[in-house]
């Protein structure tokens, strides 16, 4: 990849990350918890997928969280 294009892509990713972080920092407490609980579900799904593909076992914290889901 051309160096200029690569730098532009990195800068764009940085800008998007900053925009996203600004957005989540300014959410209400309830909205932050909604995001957190969604993040937990997505993280577990990702870890489960990795485990099913033989790429590492789900860690204990996630297993405990899964147990709490009933």
């Amino acid at each position, binding site marked *: 990849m051309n160096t200029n294009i690569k730098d532009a892509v990195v800068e764009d990713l940085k800008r998007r990350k900053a925009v996203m*972080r600004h957005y*989540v*920092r300014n959410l*209400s*407490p*309830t909205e*932050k*918890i*909604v*995001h*957190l*609980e969604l*993040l*937990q579900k997505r*993280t577990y799904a990702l870890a489960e997928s990795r485990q099913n593909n033989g790429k590492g076992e789900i860690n204990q*914290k*996630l297993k*405990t*969280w899964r*147990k*709490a*889901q*009933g």
Partner: protein
Amino acid sequence: MGKGGIEVLESDMTQNPSPSTNLGAVVDVVGEMMEHGIIADYAIGGAVAAILHYEPFSTFDLDIFFLINDGAKSLVLDMSEIYDFVRTKGFEFDHEFIMIHGWPVQFVEATHDSLWVEAIQNAEIMDVDGRQVKVIDAEHLAAMWIQAGRRKDIRKIEMFNEAGKMDADILKALLTRYDLLSNWKLSQHNFSDEYQY
């Protein structure tokens, strides 16, 4: 239905609607514990408190710091009251965690530590899911994290530093009062100029 009945119904709906988050449901259970006199006071601490002050990041359990009604009671007796209560609610246990509405919850008895007691008594009230939830404030969290001194705790202080969440004067007074200034100085190279004590 008379006007009075409607008023009561509307009041019930606005005061305690069904929670839209699991955390809201957990807070309802903690509120019941207080109503039953099992705990005297509480505040959310740890990573979830950090998230409520800052931004969502990955964490999977919830720390509830609590005070007991009778300081003379033994901790074992007090924890057994909590366990008995949650058992009647049908919640399960896993090591130090109680599984409440999708959250592994760790109840941390705070009476023995004066910093933790003050953290609960001075906790911020936040509206979470229509509930008035007590959350340990940023300066007390930072003092508790420097007390623990683990790398992940220092990282959370760095996050608060970056976000300008801590009042430098309040924090310094707190660290001085609880004899934590020397602990802070060991890690302060991680923080910005205003936190160099």
